[in-house]
């Protein structure tokens, strides 16, 4: 009896030591501002989506949504996908995903105002439901048109374990206050994300996009 107990204990230890409870899947929710400000940057957004599809592993989750319709709704979600555990099926899913994004880019109409906060709320909900190990929200926008000082939009986020990455886009019409205004907006968003216990990161150069999953 004693021997059996010791054996069971050892086996339990071995199994416990070998198995990894850590969830290694990652979920990425990309918010695209297709409004007049940066609509011509959609090609870059497509490149980012292609990179994300290439980097996605089986069982990862990926979603793309637009945030330039004034108020974020379910119709603004362009594509969502949790990839299959089998690589061959996942590859076909990636092809379908890319086709949907390309179709969107081909028929996109410029929106009026952006609703990044609504997009982030939706992204948080999606990533939590997807039960992924690492959560990323990519914002492909210049953050104009939505003020964090707006009371209606001044919502606090629950961003624990979520990395929010702002992909800086080229400004077509310079802000009247110049770069200082951009920096101020980014700083306000950083504070907002960090208040929600999220991680904030800004990527200026899309060539460095491959570094986003290193953190």
């Amino acid at each position, binding site marked *: 009896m004693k021997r059996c107990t010791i054996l069971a204990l050892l086996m339990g230890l071995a199994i416990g030591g070998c198995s990894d409870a850590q969830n290694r899947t990652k979920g990425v929710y990309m918010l695209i501002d297709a409004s007049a400000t940066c609509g011509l940057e959609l090609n870059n957004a497509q490149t980012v989506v292609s990179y994300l599809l290439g980097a996605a592993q089986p069982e990862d989750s990926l979603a793309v949504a637009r945030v330039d319709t004034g108020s974020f709704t379910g119709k603004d979600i362009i594509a969502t996908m949790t990839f299959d555990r089998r690589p061959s099926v996942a590859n076909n899913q990636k092809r379908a995903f*890319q086709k949907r994004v390309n179709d969107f880019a081909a028929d996109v109409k410029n929106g009026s105002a952006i609703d990044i906060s609504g997009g982030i709320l939706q992204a948080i909900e999606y990533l939590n439901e997807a039960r992924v190990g690492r959560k990323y929200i990519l914002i492909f926008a210049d953050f104009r048109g939505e003020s964090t000082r707006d009371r209606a939009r001044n919502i606090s986020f629950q961003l624990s374990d979520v990395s929010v990455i702002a992909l800086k886009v080229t400004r077509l019409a310079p802000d009247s206050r110049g770069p200082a205004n951009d920096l101020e907006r980014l700083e306000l968003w950083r504070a907002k994300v960090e208040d929600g216990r999220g991680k904030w990161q800004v990527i200026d150069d899309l060539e460095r996009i491959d570094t986003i999953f290193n953190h």
Partner: protein
Amino acid sequence: MFTEPLLPVAPNPILLLALLLAAMYFARKPFQQAVLAFSRMVSNALRLSAASVRQAEKKLVDRNREVLMSAGLENAERQAEREFDRINATVVRNLNGYPTLQRQMAEVAAKLEEDHARSMEIPPHLPNWIDIIEPIANIKHPGDAMVSKMLAEIDRNLRKQNRQAIEGFRGASAKRHVLLNRMMPLWRRVQKTLTDLGRSISDLTERTKTIDRLMDDYREIRARTDKAACKLSSSSTTQFLVAGLVLLIAAAGAVINFNLIAQPMSEMVGGGSFIGPHRTSAVAALVIILVELSIGLYLMESLRITRLFPVIGAMDDRMRTRMIWITLVLLTILAGVESALAFMCDRMASDMEALRQTLAGVEKTIRPGSQIATIGQMIMGFVLPFFLAFVAIPLESFISSARTVVGIVTAGLLRLVVFLLRLSGNIACYTGKLIAALYDLVIFPLLWIEGVITEKPFTIRQAFEHVSNNRQHRKAAKVNEKNPARTHILESGE
């Protein structure tokens, strides 16, 4: 208040030096005793350690010898057993045919005997009365027609008889020749059978010579001679190196095999799950390779090529044969699975490349439709499991020879430790003496004065002798303590 000097006058360096020397002179004996005691303590501790390690080394060497001899005995027994098996097979093969052979030989011998007997038949002779009639036929007749006719008739009869006798003789001779001709193939058959038998016997003789040689080796090993130990040691080192080399080659094969099946395994077990820090697909591929190795091990055990698991070797032949077939079938199935995975690996690589091109937005480039690489991968996937199955043979050699080689290396290391301990012990001992001598060197003026006073001038050599004498005295005291009879003899001056 503490700034005032303790001494009323400024300290004179010469005076201080003189005081120091005086103090050292008076402390000479206790200091030297302390230093020598300490060095002796360290030296003795190191020597004791060396003795202990030497004992361990001796035990290890004895154990190595035992292991070597038992391995050699087992090997010699196995070889002799195999030779006996071969002899048994030869004898069984020949004895199985022996009744047939005996029957054939008996039949041939009977036929030969019969033919021989028939060939020995005497040819028919002329009737006996011919000898009597012949002089009558040769009688000179005077011209009587009756007599002449009678004699002519006799002569004709005689000639007729003679011709018949000659014909009969010729017929009998021809029959004998036919019989003798018929004997030729029989003789050849007998000769061939005897040659085959002789070959089998000579094969057996060769095998008995091998067995004699093996038995000589066996006797030498049993007698535990140095020659046998040396031979076995050299043999096991060679085996260790060769088996290690083959295992390295097998490891390279296993790595190639792993890379061939790790990626496509994700189609079976999923590409996103992990076991520890490793992907489940990689672990599954590794497990498949290890299972192949295990099955190969069981197969070799069942075939009695290796003897790592005595339980398998001790199974009855029927069960063992079943196990051979089961392991062979399992191995073939796994080889088929690997071949399919290798095919899938190629397909997945193509698919992945196509996806990359799609994502990059470039036009798909059509690859030439060569199937050689795919076929090559599939063949490799099928062959590698069988190659890995044979790893059991070098593995057994490696394990058995590693015991000896590791023992030899460990014994060598222990010998080195013994040497270093003894060296350290000696260094510690002589360092103590050196410190004592240097101490005397520092206070040599006072020792010189002491020598002048006592009429024994001091030298460095004297210091060393002093130390050595102390030691010799102590040794002698120890010996005397152990052997009081010697003390008595020395005291009595006999």
